[in-house]
C-alpha cells in the first residue's frame, strides 16, 4: 500500500545542508500498524512529514520515492497531493492543543476538512462534524462543536485532532507521537481509541513514538531509527528478545519494565553494583494536614486537600499523580516557593510553614531543601554558562568566592559526571542529558538534606533518562540525601523510591511501600494507573524466551 524507496530528506540551514533522513526504505501493507521508534533527532517525524510533503521551510526530499497505491507522492503536483492529504492519508500530531487553531471553534475546523474534501455540503456540514466528534467518543458533541481548543482538556483536543484526521475516511493514518504530553490514563484511552478506529475501518497506520513500550503494545511491526537511518526492523517480541543492533539493545535496556531495578536500565558494560541506601528511623520531613486553595474565577480551587506524610532521613518518597492531582503544588509548597493555605511543614522539628515564601529565599533552611526542575532547558538561564549556574547557589547562600568556589564547582561537576571542559558552555551548547546534569549539580551544590525532583526525566530521551536516574541513585547513595520524587510514571518512581504516595484531585488515595503498591494496589485509581502504563515484556520473560 505504501512503499518508500531510499528516501533522503535534507534541510537547508545557515550552516549548509543537513541530511535528516537518509536511505530510508519501508513498506506498509493494508491493515498493518507499523511503529517507527527513535529518540529525538532520529528523523522519525521528518519521515512522516515527508510522506505528506508537509516538511517545514527549507526541508526537501533530496532522493528516493514514495509510492502510495501506485501514485508517486514525490512526483505529483501540489494540487494533487492536497487532494490526498486528509482524504487518503491523514496525520495526527503531538501536542494536540497546539495542533488546533486556537481561535476557531473545533467544529468549524472539522467542517473545513469535510468541506474541502467534498464530504459535506454547507447544509449538512455541521451535522457531519458532530457525527465525526461522536465517532471519537466525545460526549455531548453538540455543545463541544462550539468549543475552542483552550476550553478542552489535552485528551479531548487529541480526540478532535483524531476526528479531523479520520473525518474523510482515509486509508492511512500517520500518528506522530500522539500521546506526548498527555496523562498516562489518557494516553491509554487515546491509543485504544486509535487502535479500535483503525481496526474498525481496516486502515493502515504508522505510529511514530519515542516509547518502545508503547510501540510494542500497539504495533504489528517496529522499525528503530537512529540518526536518520533505520537500524533494525522486526516484530515487537523479537525486538525485545533478540535485539541485534547495539542501539536497539541500548534502547530496549533503557526502557523501564515492571520488574526492573534502576541498574537494569544500563548497558552491561557500564553496569555498577546496586546502590545500598542508608535509611534511618529519624524523621526529616513531617507534613501535617497540608492544604492549598487558590482563588479561581468560579470560586476557590482546592489544589491540595489536607494531606499528611513523612519522609525519613535518607529515604526516597515518590509522589505520583496525573496532571491536576496537586502533586506539583505540593512540591512547590515543600520547596517553599508558595505558601500553604493551612497545615504544617515540619523539617527536622522546625515548622517551616510559618516562614513566608518570600523570606525563605534567604533563610538558613533554604540550603537544606533544593529542587531539580522538570524542564532541564527552561530552568537554566540561557545567558549563564554551566559554571555560572552551578556557582549561583554557592555565591548567594554559602558566600563562596574565588578559588574555593571554582574548586567546589569542579568537584560538583565530577560528582554529576559533567566533563570539566563543558563548564564554560552555555545551555544551548549542551545536550539534554548534560543540561540535566547541570540542573542536578546546582541543586546539590549546598549539600541539601532534601532534594525535590519534579519530573526530572520527563523531557529526556529514554537512554538519557536511564543515565540520569542512575546518577540520582548514585548521588543518593553517596550523599545520603532524601528525595521527594514527583512523577506521573509509577514504573519510573519505583526505580528510585522506597515509599510512594498516589495523589488524585488534591488528596492522597494510597500510600505505602513501593513494592507493595506496585504488586498489590488496593485503590481503584492506582490499579487504573498501573494498567494504563504500557507494558513491554518483562526482563525475566525475555531472558527465558531467549
Amino acid at each position, binding site marked *: 500500500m505504501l512503499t518508500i524507496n531510499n528516501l533522503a530528506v535534507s534541510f537547508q540551514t545557515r550552516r549548509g545542508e543537513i541530511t535528516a533522513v537518509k536511505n530510508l526504505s519501508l513498506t506498509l501493507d493494508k491493515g498493518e500498524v507499523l511503529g517507527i521508534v527513535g529518540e529525538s533527532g532520529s528523523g522519525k517525524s521528518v519521515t512522516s512529514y515527508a510522506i505528506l510533503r508537509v516538511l517545514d521551510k527549507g526541508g526537501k526530499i533530496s532522493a528516493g520515492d514514495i509510492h502510495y497505491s501506485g501514485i508517486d507522492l514525490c512526483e505529483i503536483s501540489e494540487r494533487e497531493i492536497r487532494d490526498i492529504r486528509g482524504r487518503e492519508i491523514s496525520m495526527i500530531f503531538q501536542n494536540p492543543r497546539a495542533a488546533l487553531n*486556537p481561535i476557531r471553534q473545533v467544529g468549524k475546523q472539522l467542517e473545513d476538512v469535510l468541506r474541502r474534501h467534498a464530504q459535506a455540503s454547507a447544509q449538512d456540514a455541521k451535522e457531519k462534524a458532530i457525527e465525526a466528534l461522536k465517532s471519537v467518543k466525545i460526549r455531548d458533541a453538540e455543545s463541544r462543536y462550539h468549543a475552542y481548543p483552550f476550553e478542552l482538556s489535552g485528551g479531548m483536543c487529541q480526540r478532535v485532532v483524531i476526528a479531523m484526521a479520520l473525518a474523510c475516511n482515509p486509508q492511512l493514518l500517520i500518528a506522530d507521537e500522539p500521546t506526548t504530553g498527555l496523562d498516562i490514563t489518557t494516553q491509554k484511552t487515546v491509543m485504544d481509541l486509535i487502535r479500535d478506529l483503525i481496526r474498525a475501518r481496516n486502515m493502515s497506520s504508522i505510529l511514530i513514538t519515542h516509547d518502545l513500550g508503547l510501540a510494542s503494545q500497539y504495533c504489528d511491526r517496529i522499525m528503530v531509527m537512529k540518526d536518520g537511518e533505520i537500524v533494525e526492523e522486526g516484530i515487537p517480541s523479537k525486538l525485545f528478545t533478540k535485539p541485534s543492533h547495539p542501539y536497539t539493545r541500548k534502547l530496549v535496556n533503557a526502557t523501564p519494565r515492571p520488574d526492573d531495578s534502576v541498574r537494569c536500565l544500563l548497558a552491561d558494560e557500564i553496569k555498577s553494583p546496586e546502590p545500598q541506601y542508608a535509611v534511618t528511623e529519624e524523621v526529616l520531613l513531617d507534613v501535617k494536614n497540608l492544604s492549598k486553595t487558590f482563588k479561581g*474565577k468560579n470560586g476557590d480551587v482546592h489544589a491540595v486537600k489536607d494531606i499528611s506524610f513523612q519522609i525519613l532521613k535518607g529515604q526516597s518518597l515518590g509522589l505520583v499523580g496525573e496532571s491536576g492531582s496537586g502533586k506539583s503544588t505540593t512540591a512547590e509548597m515543600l520547596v517553599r516557593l508558595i505558601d500553604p493555605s493551612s497545615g504544617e511543614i515540619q523539617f527536622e522539628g522546625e515548622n517551616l510553614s510559618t516562614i513566608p515564601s518570600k523570606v525563605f529565599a534567604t533563610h538558613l533552611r533554604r540550603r537544606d531543601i533544593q529542587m531539580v526542575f522538570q524542564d532541564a532547558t527552561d530552568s537554566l538561564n540561557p545567558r549563564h554558562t554551566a559554571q555560572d549556574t552551578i556557582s549561583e547557589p554557592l555565591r548567594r547562600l554559602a558566600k563562596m568566592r574565588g578559588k574555593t568556589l571554582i574548586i567546589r564547582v569542579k568537584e560538583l561537576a565530577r560528582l554529576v559526571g559533567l566533563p570539566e571542559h563543558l563548564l564554560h558552555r552555555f545551555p544551548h551548547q549542551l545536550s539534554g542529558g548534560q543540561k540535566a546534569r547541570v540542573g542536578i549539580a546546582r541543586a546539590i551544590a549546598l549539600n541539601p538534606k532534601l532534594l525535590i525532583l519534579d519530573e526530572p526525566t520527563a523531557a529526556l530521551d529514554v537512554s538519557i533518562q536511564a543515565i540520569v536516574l542512575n546518577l540520582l541513585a548514585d548521588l543518593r547513595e553517596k550523599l545520603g540525601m532524601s528525595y521527594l520524587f514527583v512523577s506521573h510514571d509509577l514504573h519510573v518512581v519505583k526505580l528510585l523510591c522506597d515509599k510512594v504516595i498516589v495523589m488524585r484531585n488534591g488528596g492522597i488515595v494510597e500510600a505505602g511501600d513501593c513494592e507493595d503498591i506496585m504488586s498489590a494496589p488496593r485503590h481503584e485509581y492506582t490499579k487504573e494507573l498501573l494498567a494504563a502504563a504500557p507494558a513491554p515484556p518483562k526482563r525475566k520473560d525475555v531472558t527465558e524466551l531467549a
Partner: protein
Amino acid sequence: MKKTTTPNRVRAVTGRIAQTIPVLFGVVVISFLLTRALPGDPAAYFAGAAASEESIQQIRVALGLDKSLPQQFLIYLQDLFQGDLGQSISTGQPVATDLANRLPASLELTLSALLISCGIAIPLGVLAATRPGSAVDHICRVLVTAGVSLPTFFTGILLIYIFYYLLGVAPSPLGRLDFIYIEPDHVTGFYLVDAAIAGDWETWVAALKQLVLPSITLALFTLAPIARMTRAAMLSALSSDYIRTARASGLSDKKILYTHAFRNALLPIVTTLGMVFSFTLGANVLVEKVFAWPGIGSYAVEALVVSDYAAVQGFVLAMAVLFVILNLVIDLMYTAIDPRIGFDSQ
C-alpha cells in the same frame, strides 16, 4: 466558559469606562499643574507689548489668575463639570468650540492616513511573510525603511512640489477646503461625512482632494510599524503547529492563509495599530503645519507658545478622553478576535 453574553459584555464595558474616571481626574490635575508651571505670563502676553504694569494687573484679575492655585483649580473643576473648558485667550473662542472644530480635522486626517497605510502595509506584510527572501520581501523592506526615515515635513513638501507645483494635479495645500467651496453643515465635523450627508458631492470631491496629499504623507510614515508587525506576526503564525495540521488536512493555501494564519496574526497587528494611531494623532503637527491643516496639533502648539492655559488643558483632556476610547475599542477588538481573552478576566 461559554461565550460572553450580551448583558455581561455591557456590564464589562461600563466597568471599564468607570475605571477611567480616576485616570481622567489625574489628567485634569496634572495638565492644570503643568500649564501653571510653564514659563511666561499669559496676562502680559494678552495685554500686548505696550501695556503698563497696571493694565496687566487688570487683565490678570479678569482672567482669574490673581487667585491662589487651589482656588483656580476649584473654579476650573466647576466650569469643567458644566462642560465649560474655558476661553482661549489667543483665539478668543470658547475652547470647547475650538476643539469641536479642530479635533475632527485631525481625526479625519489621521484616520484616512491609517486607512491608506493599512491598505498597503497589511497586504504587503502578508505577501512578504509568505515569500520571505523574495523580491516582494525586499520591496517591502525598502519601502518601509524609506517611509520611516524620511521626516514627514520633507515628504509633505516633496509631494506638494511634485503634485501641486510641477504637475498641478493637487489643489493648493491650504487647509481642508478650497475657499471657493462652502463648508458642509456641521454634523460630525468630518467634511467627507458631512458633505455626504448633505448630498453635496462637489464639496465632497473637493474635500477629498485636499485630504489626499497630507494623508499620504502621514501614511508613508506609519507604514513601517504596521508592515513589519504584519510580516512578523504572519511568519510566526505560519510556522505554528495548527498550520501544519491544516496543511496535512489538505486545506487550500488561501484557506490556510486567511482563515487560519491571518486571523491569528491579527492580534499583534491590532495592538500595533492602536499604538500607531495614538502617536500619529500627537505627532501629525508637522503635517498640519505644512498643509495649513486646521488640526488640533497646531492648535495645541500655538496655545503652548503663548501659555494659553485653557486651550492647553482642553487639548490634553481631549486627548486623554480619546486615548481612553481608543483603548476600549482595542480591547473590544481583542475579545472579538480571540475567544481566549475573556472580558471579565481583565
